[in-house]
């Protein structure tokens, strides 16, 4: 499904060259065997002929049922997994079978934040090394030296730069997740694939990180493929949303449209299931804080 | 005591390192297996049994009634078989069986043992043994008990040749396809009951052997059991500790490290020392570099410290420094040392003088081929240290044991010098000096004249001595020739080795025999108390 483009940011802008990323009929089938290597073979289609585009400066959110193939799609888009079928275009180039320098360029421009924070960090590397690794791997200079660079990145995502020489296992889940985000930002990519990148963060840190992401988008023009379950987060950050179910994109469109006028029953079910805080409590709190006086809410920085 | 008269009965255990090379007497030919052959095979003549009063070197009649009757200037030898001789299957031993046994020496497959029959007995050039070429006309069997050999040339020591293992009789036609290596046909007091190659061999009595027909073999025990494949240190350990059946056991030469353990009275009593009759020597390749100069070779003779080579072999208990090529066990030997020094420690001053005269005052480098075995390497290092005293640098070239003799026996491959030894096939100069110094026999492969000495005078003398009729005079002449050769310094005799063995406490009748490299003569051995 290509989905209709909405007014804000359609390819109509003359300076705009077209989609940054275009996935066509992306399909992934897994072959599994039950009960050992000699077991019965079964084929499972995790991603089924999925089409979508991500435009420059745009955030496409991918939401959907757990196990619907979002992470698999992310892996396919990041070229970490060979698609069974379909093509992938990046900045106008077909990168489905990119190798060598083409692939290196692609890697420079596309970064990934993984869903599972600890598993995606090398247990034998210090944070400093993890954070500088993308630059080192891509043969780029580390601006300001390793320490300063890593320290700054850590600060940006709200981590204590003093912990730079710790190993992943010494961090909490949310901290590890932020290390993953910081790593993705290290090289200044064009597209960042965020697979549940903020799910393990408390709301204030989450807000800080999302602000960072948005600011980067504004300043440096990042695009995001943003996978999340928290629809409020999705609503806040995304321009367009694609809803996945059982390997298929069931609905996609501009964020506002999806949230306000969901068409697919599954989307509707999703929106309906969002847990909400008793509005009465909210009201009472606001009142307690004094009418119109929001300044009693301390900023994150103040609390530190 | 091990020298006492053994009782009848019991089983003698023999602990051994490697298995026998061949049970087929036409194929096997070394001290160990020759000793064993006498238990199951009989030959026309044989050596007397070693004993308290016998060194075990005298040739005596065995199957034959006497040690042979020569005629035609020692070129024709006739033997008559005793009466009442049988194979293990009960069939009588005839002169044709003897002839057939000897003929097998010409078979290209089987005849790899003692070379003397082929060397001495006349035969057509293309004769290839009984299996391929049939009968050999030069061995006649006029009747069942007479066999007559026609020789190529006069050979006064043919009685010794007739004692070689390949003069064992076999029923005509048997023994093809190496059958005897598996199932020998016994003519001696024992027969092979079972044989697992590499692990065990069992001998039991041969019922058809008549004690009356055999003055040499006492055959006291009821049988023998060989255990092969044991580790040298383990054998020493077993014999010393003497547990269980090991009190009835004998074994090979002990390791040098064991010598110092044999000091207790009980062990001293169980320790036997025999002379191997062999000389360890270093050959000097007279065709190479500085060694072409006889003075250089003589200098080396002086420079070597023979005493340290003795130490390397295990000290005074296992070897003595050599003074001449022939070891003391050879009749007619002349003991005078051509290059005398105190205790055989060498005379570096004399060596330096000779070297200076030859123009090698600064020394040179000498490459010595050595077998890859601990003792040989130790000897090589000892020589290295000795020659270092006069400025000669020795480079030790270690050669894998399995190929050592082939390499040094190939003149194109051997280096300046080689460390090896020689044992005579029977006591006398005949099988000692000519094989080592007759330059006419130098061959491109399998050469035994390692010194490459090609001296006409010596060759002439060898021929003269070979032509002598009287064996004693012959041996005396060889003794003189020994000194004559030594003046040319083609080899450096290093030491005469000894064989020290420990026997089980119940072993009796054990006497070392020079004929079998100082090993205990098996024909006289037995147990003191068979019931133990």
């Amino acid at each position, binding site marked *: 499904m290509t989905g209709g483009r909405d007014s804000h940011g359609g390819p109509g802008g003359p300076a705009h060259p077209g989609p940054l990323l275009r996935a066509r009929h992306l399909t992934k089938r897994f072959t599994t065997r039950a009960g*050992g*290597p*000699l077991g019965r073979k079964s084929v499972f289609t995790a991603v089924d002929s999925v089409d979508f585009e991500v435009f420059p400066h745009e955030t496409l959110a991918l939401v959907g049922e757990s196990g619907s193939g979002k992470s698999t799609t992310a892996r396919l888009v990041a070229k970490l997994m060979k698609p069974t079928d379909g093509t992938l275009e990046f900045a106008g180039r077909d990168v489905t079978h990119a190798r060598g320098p083409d692939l290196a360029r692609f890697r420079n421009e596309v970064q990934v934040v993984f869903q599972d924070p*600890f598993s995606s960090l090398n*247990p034998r590397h210090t944070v400093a090394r993890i954070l500088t690794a993308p630059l080192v791997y891509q043969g780029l200079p580390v601006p300001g030296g390793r320490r300063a660079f890593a320290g700054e990145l850590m600060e940006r995502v709200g981590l204590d730069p003093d912990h730079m020489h710790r190993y992943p*296992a010494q961090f909490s889940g949310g901290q590890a997740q932020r290390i993953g985000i910081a790593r993705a930002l290290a090289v200044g990519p064009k597209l960042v694939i965020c697979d549940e990148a903020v799910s393990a963060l408390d709301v204030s840190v989450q807000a800080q990180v999302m602000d960072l992401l948005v600011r980067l988008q504004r300043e440096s023009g990042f695009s995001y493929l943003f996978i999340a379950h928290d629809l409020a987060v999705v609503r806040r950050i995304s321009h367009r949303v694609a809803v996945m179910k059982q390997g298929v994109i069931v609905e996609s469109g501009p964020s506002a449209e999806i949230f306000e006028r969901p068409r697919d029953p599954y989307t509707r079910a999703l929106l309906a299931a969002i847990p909400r805080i008793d509005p009465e409590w909210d009201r009472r709190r606001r009142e307690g804080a004094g009418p119109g006086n929001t300044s009693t809410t301390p900023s994150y920085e103040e609390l530190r | 005591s091990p020298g006492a008269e053994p009782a009848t009965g019991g089983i003698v255990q023999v602990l051994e390192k*490697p*298995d026998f*090379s*061949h049970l087929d007497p036409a194929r096997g*030919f070394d001290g160990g297996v020759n000793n064993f052959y006498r238990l199951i095979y009989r030959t026309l003549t044989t050596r007397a049994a070693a004993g308290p009063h016998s060194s075990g070197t005298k040739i005596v009649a065995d199957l034959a009634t006497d040690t042979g009757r020569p005629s035609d200037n020692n070129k024709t030898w006739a033997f008559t078989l005793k009466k009442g001789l049988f194979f293990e299957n009960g069939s009588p031993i005839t002169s044709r069986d003897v002839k057939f046994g000897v003929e097998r020496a010409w*078979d*290209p*497959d089987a005849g*790899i*043992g003692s*070379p003397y029959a082929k060397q001495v007995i006349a035969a057509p050039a293309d004769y290839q043994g009984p*299996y*391929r070429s049939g009968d050999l006309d030069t061995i006649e069997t006029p009747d069942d008990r007479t066999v007559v050999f026609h020789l190529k040339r006069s050979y006064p020591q043919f009685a010794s040749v007739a004692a070689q293992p390949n003069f064992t009789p076999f029923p005509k036609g048997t023994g*093809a*396809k*190496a059958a005897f*290596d*598996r199932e020998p046909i016994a003519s001696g007091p024992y027969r092979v009951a079972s044989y*697992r*190659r*590499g*692990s065990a061999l069992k001998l039991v009595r041969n019922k058809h052997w008549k004690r009356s027909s055999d003055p040499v073999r006492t055959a006291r025990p009821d049988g023998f059991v060989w*255990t*092969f*494949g*044991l*580790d040298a*240190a*383990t054998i020493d*350990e*077993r014999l010393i*500790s003497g*547990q*269980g059946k090991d009190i009835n056991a004998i074994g090979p030469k002990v390791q040098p490290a064991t010598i110092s353990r044999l000091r207790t009275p009980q062990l001293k009593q169980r320790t036997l020392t025999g002379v191997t009759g062999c000389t360890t020597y270093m050959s000097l390749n007279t065709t190479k570099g500085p060694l072409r100069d006889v003075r250089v070779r003589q200098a080396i003779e002086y420079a070597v410290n023979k005493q340290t080579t003795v130490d390397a072999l295990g000290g005074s208990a296992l070897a003595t420094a050599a003074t001449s090529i022939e070891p003391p066990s050879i009749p007619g030997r002349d003991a005078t040392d051509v290059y005398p020094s105190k205790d055989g420690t060498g005379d570096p001053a004399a060596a330096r003088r000779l070297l200076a005269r030859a123009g090698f005052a600064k020394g040179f480098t000498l490459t010595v081929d050595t077998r890859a075995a601990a003792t040989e390497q130790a000897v090589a290092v000892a020589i290295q240290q000795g020659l270092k005293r006069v400025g000669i640098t020795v480079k030790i070239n270690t050669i*894998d*044991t*399995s*190929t050592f*003799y*082939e*390499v040094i*026996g*190939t003149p194109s491959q051997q280096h300046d010098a080689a460390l090896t030894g020689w044992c005579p096939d029977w006591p006398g100069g005949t099988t000692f000096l000519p*094989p080592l110094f007759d330059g006419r026999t130098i*061959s*491109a*492969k*399998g050469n*035994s004249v390692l010194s490459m000495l090609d001296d006409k005078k010596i060759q002439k003398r060898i021929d003269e001595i070979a032509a002598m009729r009287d064996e004693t005079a012959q041996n005396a002449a060889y003794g003189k020739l020994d000194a004559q050769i030594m003046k040319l310094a083609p080899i450096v005799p290093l030491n005469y080795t000894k064989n020290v063995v420990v026997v089980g406490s119940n072993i009796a009748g054990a006497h070392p025999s020079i004929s079998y490299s100082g090993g205990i003569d098996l024909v006289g051995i037995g147990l003191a108390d068979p019931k133990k």
Partner: protein
Amino acid sequence: MLRYVAGRLAWVLVILLAVCVFTYVIFFQLSPDPAVMICGKTCTQERIETIRTSLGLDRPFFQQLGDFLRGIVAGRDYGAGANLVHCPAPCLGYSFQSGQSVWEMVQQRLPVSVTVAVGAAVLWLLFGILFGLLSGVKEGTWWDRATMALALGGSSIPPYVLALALQYLLVVKLRVLPFPAAVPFAEDPAVWFQSYLMPWTVLAVGYACLYARLTRANVIDTLAENFMRTARAKGLGPVLILRRHALRPALTPIVTIFGMDFAGLLGGALITETVFGLNGVGKMASDAIAKNDQPVIMAVTLLAAFFVVVGNVVVDLLYTALDPRVRITAS
């Protein structure tokens, strides 16, 4: 899967063939002439030639190799006339030294080697893994330090020394064991066990030390994994946690080594067999080397190669079966 196994087995054949050719070149072409050795000390050129002819050494190299290979597959004839011998398949030739059929020799000796190897393997797996596991779990304690120092000592002692020392202690001094001998099991199980005990021990010590250290290192690594915490959170007993959750990840690399070691031993434990005078394949090999008995060397090499190569196939299969993650990446 089946295709994979078939492919690997085909490779086994290819590798064995390559080993065959290589061994043939090294031992029959580069090494000195066996005929001269057989010929003995008083030897003539023509005798050497005759021996060469009868051994077939005078023929062109490829013909010899071809004959050899054909012999393995289909059997072959040796000699001519009255001396003609038919050697049925699998024919590995006849020993230059003893004239015995090499195949028979192998058949006789293999049981001894297998007994030695299996017994030792049981011992070293048992002790190596047990001690490694305990040390890994008790990392840093005195027990760990002591065990690991012991393991180092064990791997620094040459087996030869250990063998003699054990023999001196247990057999000569304490007299609790007999001198080792290759007693068949059927003859007397008790004596069989007693006489193999020392060879097993000596052979096992070195391996046990290596395995203990490896197991320890892997166990320590595994214990640091998050899933070990899960296992504890489940309230599983320490034995079950170790046996199931720690051992399998820790032992997968050891399976690789074990396959190689064990297969290598089936080709004969050279030193142990020699020291204890056990007439196994290893002893046969060392004797053959000492005498340059090429057909025997060839056979031992092929035998050892066969076990090792097949062992490697088994290990690879086991590995994929043991570690489910490998399957997807290896395919």
